[in-house]
Each structure stands twice: as structure tokens, then as C-alpha cells.
């Protein structure tokens, strides 16, 4: 069996996939990657199904040794990364060999990074998903964040079609110097809040606090006046801005509790959820209200570059020769050109 060996774990490095949405009604958090777009791109770059299990890490990445040849791709936040001491670019597919060491350092921009490996991380699924829910010790490797010495089963792979076509532009990441603009939809309890509070939410700057994890990011900023009415517990959604008694909103993310009783003033548009998740502690954010039709058009457009990559890769795939033979033939062709 081929595996990845964790030499240094980084911060909260976990196995994630699409999570367990269908088990939310039994009280299991949805879980899954918090920047779903970045995880999807990483998988696509190495020829995986979009929902294959990847490694997610935050602010400081892991150091990993490969026991067998395979293909990898890094996406999400910008991390100082090298392979055997040589700097390695993100957002493209790379071939690695047995004994190679990948060192992912600090995040230089953004917060959450992803490492996809051809074939996906092969840990045991729990309730249909390999996602780690640390709070419940569920999924991943023993339900925990990875530790030094952990071995993650993967598949050995030596050939990948269209190797040279597998790259994409970097995703949009928040700039620390300027407030990140996050688009919101009015939440189900928007009307419960008075006008001054509604205005405060969209006219002020909020800051991502240090209390931010896979359950949710707490924001600090102008206090929102909490309505007197009480809400019966209802299902939570990813991106909901819940306003607890202290008036400081929390944006609920992947590992949130499945139900909650705090009023939801607004919900982050799905198109901006990954961008929001990429905000580092201290990042200023500004909210902008948009309508539902706009949010849905934006969301539909997200797929386009991914579909285009898939097209390129698939078209590339049918141009012989394939794999290693193609690399060889290109080298030979270049000799004649010189």
C-alpha cells in the first residue's frame, strides 16, 4: 500500500471531502472542506472525482513524505511550498516520486490550503464520508487532526493523461490591506432586526476574530441589536450570520451544529463562501447585500472555468501519444527543433 507520511502536521491538518450533508437530520454536522471550490479544483487538477478526499490545512501547512510515485496539486491560500527544497507552484499538477518530501510552510495570503493526491486519500469513510469532524472524533484518521508520524493510505500512480494541461489561475484571495467584500443575502430573520441594525451591518467594517475555526468565524465590530423575539430551533445553513445575545455575528461554516435558535440576519452568498473562509484573523470585511437571482447567477458562473479545464483535459487526453510516451516524443521533437 502506498501512503503519505506526515513528518510535521501543520495546524489543524485534516482529511476532508464533501462531508455528510445527508446525515444532518440525525444531528451530524455537515463537515467537508471549508473552501469547497479550492478542494474541487485540487481534485480536478490530479484527475480525481471532484469530491475525492483531500488534505485541508490552515495558516501553517504540513510536511509530507511520499512512499510511492503519484501526482499532486496544491490549491487555496498561498503557502511557501517546496518539494525536496525546490520551490513548487500551486494550482497545477506535479508528479512526485517515492521519497520526495513536500514542505508546506506559512500562509502568505489567504488562510486555508488543499493538497490533492491522485486517486484521493484512502482513509476509511464513516457515514459515507472521509471528512474529519474533530469535535466528534469522526472520520479522517481516528477522527483527529493529523499528527507527526501518521500514515495516510493513497494509491500509487505513474501515468496521468494531459499532464501539461493541468493548471488553472490562482483563486481570488482576500488582501490584508483592503477590506474583503462579502456579498450577503437577507436572512430569514432579517426583518426582525431594526433598521439601524440592518444599516450597521452593511455600512460598517467587521473584523475576523481569533475565535475562528471550522465551526464558524466570530466577527467583531459594531454591536448588532438583538431582537426580543425568540426563535424555535431550526436547521442551520453554511454561511448563515447568526447573531447571539452579545450582538457580535458568527458566520457558520462546515462543522457548525445542525440546528440553532439564534436569529439569522443574513447568509453569505455561496459564491463568496470560499473567499470568506480564506480570511485570516484580523482581516477586515465589508458586507454588501445582493438579491437571490444575482446570487444564483453568480453561483452558476463559478463552474465555467472548471468545465473549461475538464474540456481541455479531456480533449488533450485523446491526442496521442499518451502519458510518458508523449513526454518522450516532445523531448525528441525539441531536439530536432534546436
Amino acid at each position: 500500500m502506498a501512503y503519505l507520511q506526515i513528518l510535521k502536521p501543520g495546524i489543524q491538518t485534516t482529511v476532508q471531502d464533501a462531508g455528510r450533508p445527508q446525515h444532518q437530520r440525525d444531528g451530524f454536522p455537515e463537515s467537508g472542506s471549508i473552501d469547497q471550490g479550492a478542494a474541487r479544483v485540487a481534485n480536478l487538477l490530479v484527475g480525481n472525482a471532484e469530491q475525492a478526499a483531500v488534505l485541508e490545512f490552515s495558516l501553517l501547512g504540513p510536511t509530507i513524505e511520499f512512499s510511492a510515485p503519484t501526482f499532486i496539486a496544491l490549491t487555496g491560500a498561498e503557502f511557501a511550498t517546496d518539494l525536496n527544497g525546490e520551490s513548487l507552484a500551486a494550482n497545477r499538477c506535479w508528479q512526485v516520486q517515492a521519497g520526495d518530501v513536500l514542505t508546506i510552510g506559512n500562509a502568505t495570503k489567504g488562510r486555508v490550503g488543499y493538497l490533492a493526491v491522485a486517486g484521493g486519500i484512502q482513509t476509511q469513510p464513516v457515514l459515507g464520508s472521509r471528512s474529519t469532524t474533530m469535535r466528534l472524533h469522526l472520520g479522517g484518521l481516528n477522527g483527529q487532526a493529523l499528527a507527526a508520524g501518521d500514515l495516510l493510505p493513497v494509491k500509487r500512480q505513474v501515468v496521468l493523461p494531459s499532464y501539461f494541461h493541468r493548471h488553472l489561475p490562482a483563486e481570488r484571495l482576500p488582501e490584508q490591506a483592503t477590506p474583503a467584500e462579502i456579498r450577503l443575502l437577507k436572512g430569514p430573520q432579517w426583518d426582525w432586526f431594526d433598521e439601524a441594525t440592518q444599516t450597521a451591518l452593511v455600512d460598517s467594517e467587521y473584523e475576523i476574530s481569533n475565535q475562528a475555526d471550522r465551526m464558524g468565524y466570530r466577527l467583531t465590530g459594531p454591536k448588532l441589536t438583538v431582537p426580543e423575539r425568540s426563535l424555535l430551533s431550526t436547521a442551520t445553513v453554511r454561511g448563515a450570520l447568526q447573531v447571539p445575545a452579545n450582538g457580535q455575528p458568527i458566520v457558520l461554516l462546515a462543522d457548525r451544529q445542525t440546528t440553532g435558535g439564534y436569529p439569522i440576519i443574513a447568509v453569505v452568498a455561496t459564491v463568496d463562501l470560499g473567499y470568506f473562509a480564506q480570511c485570516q484573523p484580523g482581516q477586515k470585511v465589508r458586507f454588501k447585500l445582493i438579491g437571490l437571482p444575482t446570487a444564483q447567477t453568480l453561483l452558476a458562473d463559478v463552474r465555467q472555468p472548471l468545465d473549461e479545464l475538464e474540456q481541455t483535459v479531456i480533449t488533450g487526453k485523446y491526442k496521442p501519444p499518451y502519458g510518458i510516451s508523449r513526454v518522450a516524443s516532445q523531448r525528441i521533437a525539441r531536439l530536432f527543433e534546436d
Partner: protein
Amino acid sequence: MDYRMIPVGDQAVAIEMGTTIDPAVNQRLQTIGQAVLAAHLPMVKTVIPGYATLTVTFNGQMATTEMVMKKLTPLIDAAMQAKLAPHQTWLIPVCYGGEFGPDLADVAAFAKCSAEEVIAKHTSRDYLIYFMGFLPGFAYMGSVVDEIAMPRLAEPRLEIPAGSVGIAGAQTGFYPVASPGGWRIIGQTPLKLYDPAHPQSFYHAGDLIRFQAVSAAEFATIKQAVAAGTYQPKGVA
């Protein structure tokens, strides 16, 4: 029963029926939930019940909220007329009082009756699981008879043992795993309500729970059988 559909963000719709905790409303929502899942709409991810809501989540890259609402309307209308979805009634053995139920005497004082009467009242009716949340296997159930509906502790306990059965106002429930909590603990079940090896609980939202008082000796016997893996949770036919 009237309902309305409210978009929650761009990938969910909540079906809301009033704003009260009412078993009839919740059971109707569970029935709608079953119908939505049975329809296997390709864009629908799942349904999640609350007290008076059923939230339907969907893939926003496959359909708009408007399209989903259009698909849901006939399903809801049919489920409003249909028979209630089938559900199970589960028997949960509980050893009340003593070390298992440190708050039983307080609840008795609150209800101005004996501990035996509190037990009789708590076991006198079946409780509907309105929804599951907070922790896996944590069932929000109601409602207990008014006399024993004691509000939660002012200071939550730091750790309540797994299997503890408690009361919080009209709600009753059990702690599937050891956890902090402020419920009035009146007993404990020997059943394993959360097992990381088989994380899915045997009971679900929409099921009914019937508590059954057992002695400390019976508690020990059942606990042994559970540990040996020979105990099957009992349903009521």
C-alpha cells in the same frame, strides 16, 4: 395547516408551519420530509427538520430557489393530505433517581409530589423526537406533563455522564455522550446511545420514545448485554 417557503441563502428553502412547538405540525413536516427524499429530485441534497420548519438544501449550481420551490409545492400539497409517514416507537429503559438521577428529588419538590410520582409522570406518555441536533444522537423531545416541566439548572454541570435522562422545561431527552449541560438529570439509561463504531443512532427524528423504569439490577444486566453486543433496542409493535 398553512405553510410558507422561505429561502435561506441561495442553496436552501425552509418550509415553515407556524411558530409553535406542536407535535401535529412537526409530524406533518416529517411526512413532507419523507416525501421530498422519496421523490429523489436530482438537485436536492437533504432535508433537516426543526420544531416547526423543514429545511430543504439543494445544489445551487443545478437549480435556482424558484425552481426548487416549484418542484416542492406539489410534493408538499400531496404530503399535507397523505397519511403520516410511518415511524417507530422505541422503549428506553431508565433507572431513575439515586446516583443516576441526582435531580430527581428537586424535580419532585418542584412538582410537589413524590419521586415515584415523577417517574410515573415521566413514563406516562410517548415523546415525539422533533429533531436531532446539538450532538449526534441528541434528540429534542417533548412535551412532559406540566407539573414536572422544571426549568434547567442556573449553572450547567461540567460533565453529565452518557445515557443521562433529563428534563429542561417541557423538553425531555438523553445525553448520548458525556457532555456539559444544564438539564435536570432524573435517571440514566444503560443503552449505548452513541457508538463511534456505529455512529448512526437507531432512533430518528419523527420517531416516538417511551421511557420504561427499571431497577438498578435490571440496569446492570442490560448494561452488560449492551457491552457484550447482545442487546437489541426494543421497538413497540
